[in-house]
């Protein structure tokens, strides 16, 4: 029931995403043409309209769905393994690492610019290195005793990487604007390239996180009790963190730092439908995907033809909505 509702929400978001734009394509045509492309049939749209759909709107909408679903699922996963409601996918330094990676490209390989192949790779590597460093540091500081050491290590690494990033930025003042716009997050696509980058990581991570949804519920009772229930807590935590982090790094690499999705989506679902990860994890993926697609529609239409950074939209519309949910949800608590 809930899953069906979430699926309808996502379908509505996807359809809205491909229909809204300067050129009117028509809902039936869009659905028809999409199936035609997927199954290799003849598209009912004219050549130009077909290109708008297949090369511009669909890749962007699909990218938004992948990024949104990934960030929401990663946020839910982090909140579970760290038992911390404020945990978001960037908790262990993924954002700072990716920011440093992007800044390095902008500063030292200006030719490739922010649209080139180098940026996603560099941002991905930066995020992965940061989280790995946080994990190693957290382990050596006794992360076995609980998740607090890991979170502190993440904060430490994030601070250090941010310092490096600002230093590089100050040395290359001309890059500030480009890096800044990247940091605010944006869904811009060159055909299906970005979707191709994120899709394998996102799907692998979703499968791993969905596979762990029952065990994430067990972790909620604490490390000791989970262990007494037969769970290898350290292994579950490591697997979930790795899966969530790699997908987050891929999302950051193609869309910059889109804030708030990883917190607002899982918490809204918790308040409306309860905190069990069996429902929370699949719903986070589906609702997160739909949420970001809707946010992107707003980002590219509200000041059209100019585009608002999508991170601004997710926070501007997400925060008041979350406030309403928080107030309503409390009555049942």
């Amino acid at each position, binding site marked *: 029931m809930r899953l069906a509702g979430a699926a309808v929400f996502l379908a509505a978001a996807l359809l809205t995403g491909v229909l809204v734009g300067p050129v009117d394509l028509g809902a039936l045509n869009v659905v028809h043409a999409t199936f035609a492309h997927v199954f290799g049939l003849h598209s009912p749209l004219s050549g130009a309209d077909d290109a708008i759909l297949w090369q511009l709107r669909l890749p962007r909408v699909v990218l938004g769905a992948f990024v949104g679903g990934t960030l929401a699922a990663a946020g839910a996963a982090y909140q579970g393994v760290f038992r911390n409601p404020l945990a978001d996918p960037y908790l262990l330094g993924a954002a700072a690492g990716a920011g440093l990676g992007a800044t390095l490209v902008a500063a030292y390989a200006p030719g490739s610019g922010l649209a080139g192949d180098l940026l996603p790779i560099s941002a991905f590597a930066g995020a992965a290195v940061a989280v790995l460093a946080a994990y190693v540091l957290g382990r050596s500081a006794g992360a076995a005793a609980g998740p607090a050491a890991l979170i502190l290590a993440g904060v430490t690494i994030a601070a250090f990487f941010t310092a490096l990033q600002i230093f590089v930025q100050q040395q290359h003042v001309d890059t500030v604007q480009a890096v800044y716009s990247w940091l605010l997050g944006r869904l811009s696509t060159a055909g299906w390239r970005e979707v191709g980058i994120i899709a394998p990581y996102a799907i692998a991570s979703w499968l791993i996180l969905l596979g762990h949804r029952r065990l994430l519920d*067990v972790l909620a*009772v604490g490390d*000791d009790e989970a262990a007494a*229930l*037969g769970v290898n807590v350290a292994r579950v935590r490591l697997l979930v963190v790795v899966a969530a982090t790699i997908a987050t790094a891929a999302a950051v690499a193609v869309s910059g730092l889109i804030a708030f999705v990883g917190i607002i989506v899982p918490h809204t679902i918790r308040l409306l439908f*309860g905190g*069990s990860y069996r429902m929370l994890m699949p719903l986070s993926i589906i609702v997160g995907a739909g949420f970001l697609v809707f946010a992107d529609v707003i980002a590219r239409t509200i000041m059209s033809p100019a585009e608002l950074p999508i991170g601004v939209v997710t926070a501007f519309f997400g925060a008041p909505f979350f406030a309403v949910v928080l107030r309503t949800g409390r009555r049942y608590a």
Partner: protein
Amino acid sequence: MTALALDGLSVTLGGQRIVDRLAAAVDEGEWVALIGPNGAGKTTALRAVAKLIAYDGRVRVFGDDAAELSRRDLARLVALVPQVPLIPGDITVWEYVRLGRTPHLGFFEGEGRSDNEAVEVALQQLDLVPFARRRLDTLSGGERQSATLARALAQDAPILLLDEPTAALDVGRQQQVLELVDVLRRERGLTVFSTMHDLTLAGQYADRLLLLDGGRLVAAGAAREVLTQALISEHYGADVAVVDAPGSGFVVVPVRSRIGDGADSC
């Protein structure tokens, strides 16, 4: 048959011996309580049995070395109810009790009919059926305690470890919980190994008591043998009287002897 055998069990934390060569055996169906002053190592010993901390020596569960059992296999034999369970607020009582089925499920396995039945039975035995769909954070302290106990029952393990099962409860609720544990023990043939704070209740409910002090076993046996004025005053540093209570054995009560001294000197 011996359900639980501790042989030279020692735990060292931060360079300090917390449990020192503890040896004990608990028979199947028996209720054995660890008693002793604060810091005697009761909880630590219990945690070692549940394999939550590293220990020296050997713990045998129905003859098998606990160190060689996988976590999951051990969890099918031993269920733990901690002193202060961590209660996740945003799941329902049903979902919480169902966590007890975790050791019975493979990684890709979901709960089947037998799992749901075990949850249902545990909820019934603890009178939690009306609360099944409620969120845990809407329950009172006593109801949460019951929920944790139900989770341990759903785990379907023949050995139940209880860490201070009555710590935060009022006197009536304490009796209800211990009475319930005793009933469940008889109905299900459970073996209970618990730490106990209240000496009177320990004496009334446990078959045998193990008195720990400074990590060492200093006395063991039936309540009459362990709960003596001499042993309690030596190891707890307490002034107590052990008073016969017709119908329920005896009670241990604190005595304030200095009041008398003060009155004399006036």
